[in-house]
């Protein structure tokens, strides 16, 4: 192949090059502009992170004394070490490392359940329409807007009753069904209030999904769920990524529900812990530790972003249908 290229190109080189180079020039300028813009935006977006990062490597003296944007004079890792393993979350001074697991135990099921339900709902609302589907969707959509402040108390009441019911049930059957467990409660709450969004994402994505594929699968004998699992899901990667990013971030960072329903040490999620590190009413604020803690707390989310980002694939539906 290379030999062929080598032999054919010179014969036509002069003309084609003149033509090419002009186009290449404009293309080059275009590419340069794109990369330039992206770099500028990246820098702008990174600016606050820069402040945080710089601060997290400074000593408190330096923070109080110097410019916020200045590089640390005497960089120190202590704030990070402290945030990870020493800083106090309430009366327990073992850093924030212990709270990851609490959050993960809650976030993973909540994200998984709400994503799958959202995908199923979107699938039904676009490919298995029934009279009134628009109304159902509209209602679920409008649900996104309910202020969480106003659901906090009634939800607590219901969760409390469920918890007492769970105790009764456990006493009667000797089996723990998970009622009243604060992690289970949080999963439930996040699924309930995430459904509107996940449904929205998937419905709007499936809206453009060729119905012919569903039909073909039906003819192939696939059932409702088989079509969903084998045809819909594998072709929804980008929207799954978006949904997971959204849900993971929101649930991971949720403070209101987490503090109200799971404030105690054994199930305290990451955000409540972080909040307890960062916020202080009348005490001394250790900004460097706070910044480090915040960045550590964000690592799982960042990992999700990076991992999930690989599934932002192009051309998923290419070649499926003609039309």
């Amino acid at each position, binding site marked *: 192949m290379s030999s062929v290229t080598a032999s054919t190109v010179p014969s036509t080189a002069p003309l084609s090059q003149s033509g090419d180079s002009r186009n290449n020039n404009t293309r080059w300028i275009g590419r340069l502009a794109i990369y330039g813009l992206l770099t500028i935006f990246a820098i702008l977006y990174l600016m606050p992170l820069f402040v945080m990062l710089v601060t997290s490597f400074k000593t408190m003296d330096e923070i109080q004394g110097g410019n916020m944007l200045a590089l640390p004079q005497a960089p120190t890792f202590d704030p990070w070490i402290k945030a990870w393993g020493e800083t106090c979350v309430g009366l327990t001074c073992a850093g924030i490392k212990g709270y990851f697991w609490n959050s993960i135990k809650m976030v993973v099921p909540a994200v998984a359940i709400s994503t799958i339900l959202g995908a199923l709902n979107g699938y039904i609302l676009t490919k298995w329409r029934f009279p009134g589907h628009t109304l159902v969707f509209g209602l679920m959509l409008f649900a996104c807007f309910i202020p969480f402040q106003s659901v906090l*108390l009634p939800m607590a*009441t219901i969760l409390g009753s469920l918890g007492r019911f769970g105790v009764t049930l456990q006493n009667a059957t000797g089996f723990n069904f998970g009622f009243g467990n604060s992690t289970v409660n949080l999963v439930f709450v996040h699924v309930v209030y995430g459904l509107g969004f996940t449904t929205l994402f998937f419905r709007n994505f499936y809206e453009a999904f060729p119905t012919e594929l569903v039909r073909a699968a039906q003819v192939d004998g696939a059932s409702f769920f088989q079509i969903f699992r084998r045809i819909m899901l594998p072709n929804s990667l980008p929207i799954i990524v978006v949904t997971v990013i959204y849900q993971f971030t929101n649930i991971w960072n949720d403070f209101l529900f987490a503090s109200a329903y799971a404030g105690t040490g054994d199930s305290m999620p990451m955000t409540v812990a972080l909040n307890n590190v960062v*916020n202080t009413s009348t005490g001394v604020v*250790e900004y460097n530790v706070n910044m480090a803690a915040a960045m550590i707390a964000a690592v799982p989310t960042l990992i999700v972003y990076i991992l999930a980002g690989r599934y932002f694939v192009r051309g998923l539906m290419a070649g499926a249908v003609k039309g």
Partner: protein
Amino acid sequence: ADVKEVQMLHWWTSGGEAAALNVLKQDLSKEGFAWKDVPVAGGGGDAAMTALKAMVAAGTYPTASQMLGYTVLDYAQAGVMGDLTETAKKEGWDKSVPAALQKFSVYDGKWVAAPVNVHSVNWLWINKAVMDKIGGTQPKTFDDLIALLDKAKAAGVIPLALGGQNWQEATMFDSIVLSTGGPEFYKKAFNDLDEESLKSDTMKKSFDNLATIIKYVDPNFSGRDWNLATAMVIKGDALVQVMGDWAKGEFVAAKKTPDKDFLCYRFPGTEGSVVYNSDMFGMFNVPDDRKAAQVALATATLSKSFQSAFNVVKGSVPARTDVPDTDFDACGKKGIADLKAANEGGTLFGSLAQGYGAPPAIANAYKDVVSKFVHGQIKSSDEAVKQLVQAIDDAR
């Protein structure tokens, strides 16, 4: 929940406070009670109160919760608080705890909360080096203070360090009102919410004084956290801060010593009076089998040893007047003496800004008005007084 366990909701999560609470935790563990921490920091207890409300709604009461002033009474009224009267009798709280505090820890004749400390807010915090440089002396009147601030200004130092958040502004205003109108006036206006006093000329004068003093603040004060304002004084960028005694913690943390590096004076014209707020541990109506743990917690909280140990760290003064001041620094000693004097002299007043003068609806309405005045939405003291009366009336 385990019966040998104390579930404690609080927002004391940062260094000193947490360390102080740890003393309590250890005291309890000596008696065989485990400590189950429910810390919810943020917003000066707002987040914790929200969580508490949810817990109460769910019917899963903690053993106790850190609470402020009128909140205790609200919860008591809702019938969710426990009864510690027996313990109180045994321990003699009625006598040792100032009556002003009992107003909030006793509801309907029953002890429902254990006060932990008393903060007072009418303090001036001054950088001694700067003070020496400009040759200032302790201001005795409001005008003295203004003169002092002028001196600082002339010397090129920021005269007054202030954080432009409504509670900081209102906290300073508490002191100004007390200074301008005197103890009687303060009580009538800010504790009894007497409308005549609220719209009186004295109140207008107070606002005018606020307007005067605010001129000595640097232009960037808006939104600044209180501890950053304190830091300005510590570093000598600013001369003085008007702030509650928790500010001392910042000085101590910066390894400064009272009288040597910094000075603590009562706000001029408020000598002999104490505008206070107090942290309380509200005790919930837990099932009988958890009562023992609750009693142990209450007893330990009001024990002299804990009161001393805790307040030394916290910067506040003990909630009972019979605690020796040996472990306290100069400012602490002064605070204890002042509290005792004010308690006996009837000049111990709840801070309106801190939620001890009136219920939260009113306290917050008050903060709104002060803050709007400071930031120029309300342009005159006449208008401010009108707004204040209206806002308080609305919130009643």
